[in-house]
């Protein structure tokens, strides 16, 4: 099996791991907020007050989504550049040998 095939299978597994929860927990909220932990803390210690606030918060869910997307895009961009560069390097080495 080639590497591309192996990796394709692995990526399909990752996609399944992301899709299966959406199907079996169809009605769930899939909240991303850290609300539940906050709730648990206030349950254990009702008088706890956060003593520090975020210095800046994204003004809306959309802006937050934008920033997360940028973070992922920047990382993915570098990874793809690196792999492309390495692939080219390897090919050049091979051609030199011939």
């Amino acid at each position: 099996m080639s590497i591309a095939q192996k990796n394709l299978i692995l990526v399909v597994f990752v996609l399944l791991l992301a899709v299966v929860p959406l199907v079996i927990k169809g009605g769930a909220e899939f909240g991303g907020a850290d609300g539940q932990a906050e709730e648990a803390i206030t349950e254990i210690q009702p008088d706890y007050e956060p003593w520090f606030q975020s210095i800046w918060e994204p003004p809306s869910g959309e802006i937050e989504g934008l920033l997360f997307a940028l973070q992922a895009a920047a990382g993915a961009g570098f990874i793809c550049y690196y792999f492309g560069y390495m692939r080219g390097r390897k090919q050049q080495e091979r051609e030199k040998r011939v």
Partner: protein
Amino acid sequence: MSGKICSMLAFVYLLTVMFVSPANAYAMHIMEGFLPVQWAVLWAVLSLPFLIAGVISIKRTLRDRPNLKMMLGLAGAFAFVLSALKLPSVTGSCSHPTGVGLGAVLFGPAAMSVLGCIVLIFQAILLAHGGLSTLGANTFSMAIVGPFVAYGVYKITQKLGAPFWLAVFLAAALGDLLTYVTTSFQLALAFPAEVGGFMASFIKFNTIFAVTQVPLAISEGLLTVVVFNVLAAYNSQELQELSVLSKEEVQI
């Protein structure tokens, strides 16, 4: 052959755990301001020596092998991408992987402490995710426990003769999972329950943080193997320099 059966069994076990887990939990880093001052300071102080060791380790790696600069960037970029992906989990909520296992296997756990901390600072300042006051605690869980567990698991499974892919998978997955067990540990220490004390809180926070993380930890393990497959194809020389792959493994 027995290794394959073992990994199959482990996979089936993890799937079972996922399906019986309780509903509705959120899993992320500790929120800004949500750790009492003394704990926030303690975790920051505990994290500091690892960060210093990490800076020294990175400097040494780049001085001895400047050609590895790009690969170090890859390790950072991988953590950057994975910690930005909030994925749905079988608990009906979302969390994100950490991506620190890859760099820990490549460059050692200390180096990854620094890169993980940078990711956390970025998210605390720009995304209001995690926090500056809880940076020490979050660094300790994601950038210290995570990479050190990953590195330890990788070394042990390699020594036990597990195939390379399995060692990488387990390292990344367990590093990811233990990060969130640590988060639960930190919160339980700071907020012991009135009834049941530390243990009751620890279990409670684990159902919030760690259980949600199980499928994501598997995803992170698989994605780390994907990256290593590509690295083994194009970067076998660098992997040998980092003594990640031996000569024989490169031939395969």
